[in-house]
């Protein structure tokens, strides 16, 4: 394809073709500026500034000038058991949400790719969690989990399975309960991405495999999975990042309680920065989070890519 156009271009119409090319050359700089300046000023700049703040004793509302304190914040963090506990919860949450999210979304996408009745309804419903404000998702599930007026306990009572649990305040149930909400809230994006990947799978391959007598699982392994693998990897990596950095859902559901059992690193850093005013210390936490997520991603991507080569 490329070679054909390359051959044809100089021979076909050299004059105007090259003319437009050159004209475009002047365009980019001024066309890019409107987006580039805000990105530089309000995204690249602040993020670098944020990283630098981690090496200072910046505090909210302080009159004395901020000083460089080297790696003191990081050394303090090292001994901050509360932070590491929060960090551990963050990892459990990120993996605990991302994995079921992927499996459930894959199942749903495979179903939606079939010729089923009610598919339109499922497609519409699958989008709903995506459209909702996270705060509303949190409020909604608070109503579901409510010990007295909630539908979960009511259903359990009807089934004779107890039903007097306070899901979001129980030390043992709080984290699993918020993880379920996380899975629910993030399913749409994953489903949509996987479904699109599925619809790019060549039908003929499927049919050929079926004619050859391949069972559903083998068809999935040999035809479907290779086709959706790039999409699956990309969306899972993104989900991992988004989930690790998530805030609003858990803030509304439990505010990090009970006893810090659901205090994700973002909630911890938010409190450190905007309740206690420790900007420098909170920035150091942010840096540790970026480092962690980078390592996590590197491990995930390297592992997956290698696994793919063998398969």
């Amino acid at each position, binding site marked *: 394809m490329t070679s054909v156009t390359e051959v044809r271009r100089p021979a076909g119409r050299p004059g105007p073709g090259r003319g437009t090319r050159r004209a475009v050359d002047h365009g980019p700089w001024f066309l890019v500026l*409107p*987006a580039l300046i805000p990105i530089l000023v309000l995204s690249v700049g602040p993020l670098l500034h*944020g990283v630098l703040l981690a090496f200072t004793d910046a505090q909210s509302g302080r009159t004395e000038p901020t000083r460089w304190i080297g790696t003191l914040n990081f050394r303090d963090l090292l001994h901050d058991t509360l932070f590491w506990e929060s960090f551990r919860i963050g990892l459990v949450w990120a993996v605990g949400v991302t994995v079921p999210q992927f499996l459930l979304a894959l199942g749903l996408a495979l179903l939606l790719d079939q010729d089923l009745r009610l598919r339109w309804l499922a497609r*519409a419903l699958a989008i709903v969690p995506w459209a909702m404000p996270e705060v509303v998702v949190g409020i909604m599930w608070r*109503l579901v989990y409510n010990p007295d007026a909630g539908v979960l306990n009511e259903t359990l009572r009807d089934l004779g399975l107890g039903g007097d649990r306070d899901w979001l305040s129980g030390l043992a149930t709080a984290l699993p309960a918020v993880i379920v909400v996380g899975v629910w809230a993030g399913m749409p994006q994953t489903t949509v991405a996987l479904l699109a990947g599925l619809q790019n799978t060549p039908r003929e391959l499927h049919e050929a495999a079926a004619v050859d007598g391949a069972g559903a699982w083998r068809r999935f392994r040999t035809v479907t999975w290779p086709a959706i693998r790039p999409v699956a990897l990309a969306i899972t990596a993104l989900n991992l990042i988004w989930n690790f950095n998530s805030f609003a859902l858990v803030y509304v559901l439990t505010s990090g309680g009970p006893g810090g059992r659901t205090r994700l690193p973002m909630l911890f850093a938010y409190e450190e920065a905007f309740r206690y005013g420790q900007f420098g210390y909170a*920035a150091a936490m*942010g840096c540790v989070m970026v480092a962690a*997520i980078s390592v996590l991603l590197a491990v995930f991507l390297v592992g997956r890519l290698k696994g793919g080569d063998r398969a």
Partner: protein
Amino acid sequence: MRTGRGARAGQYAALLAYLVFLAFPFLWLVSTAFKSPRELGSLHPAWIPDDPTLANFRQAFDEQPLLHAALNSLLAALSAALIAVVVATPTAYVMARRRSALARAATGWVVVSQAFPFVLLIIPLFLVLKNLRLIDSVPGLVMVYVVWALPFALWMLTGYVRAVPAELEEAAAVDGAGRLRTLVSVTAPLLAPGIVATALFAFVTAWNEFFFALVLLKTPEKQTLPVVLTHFIGAEGVADLGPLAAAAFLATLPSLVVFAIIQRRITGGMLAGAVKS
């Protein structure tokens, strides 16, 4: 493809389970919003309210400045969406049409910036906005939203631009149309639906956004809808369920309507952006 009857039945059962899982929390929210206080206090809440009432909605508006908050949200989301699209479209055009180092750097940044937790971004922005006296103001929030919306706006728009064949523009150039003329009368009309979809998507994300609004807006009269919604939940986590549900239900409606309109385009645009880059 042939599917056995047993397998079909299994598929329908699975689909039904998904439908229930996806729908029940929302249906419960709606049900709670229309229940009377007496029923909410009873130990056996039903799916269908005994005597549906609008009292919760009235009470919600009495308790919190919902209308004002909705106006703030509308103002912030509309401005952010418009500015983001105006700013992103030319850049997306360049990124799609040319593989320059700049375009690559911009794309790289879009991806990298996703990995940074918002704390690292919000503390410096908080300090900057404070110096500019834009803290606790909707314009300050709009600035943050624009930057926050830019990555996916660029992403989606780049996909839409790629979908407009460059040959059409070249043909117009051959026919003697100038650059500007080509952009205005050939590219823009084909790009318009994509631009609208991107703007609407940016609108919904800003309308739904919570974290930045929570940090930046302190005065109750300036707060946006999601922040005001959290005021229904008391300090001890005890909430007046009826009004809470009613307000949450109302706050969701605009997002649902907009999403219903653009659903198809969004997924199409994201994929177009994803497939080729």
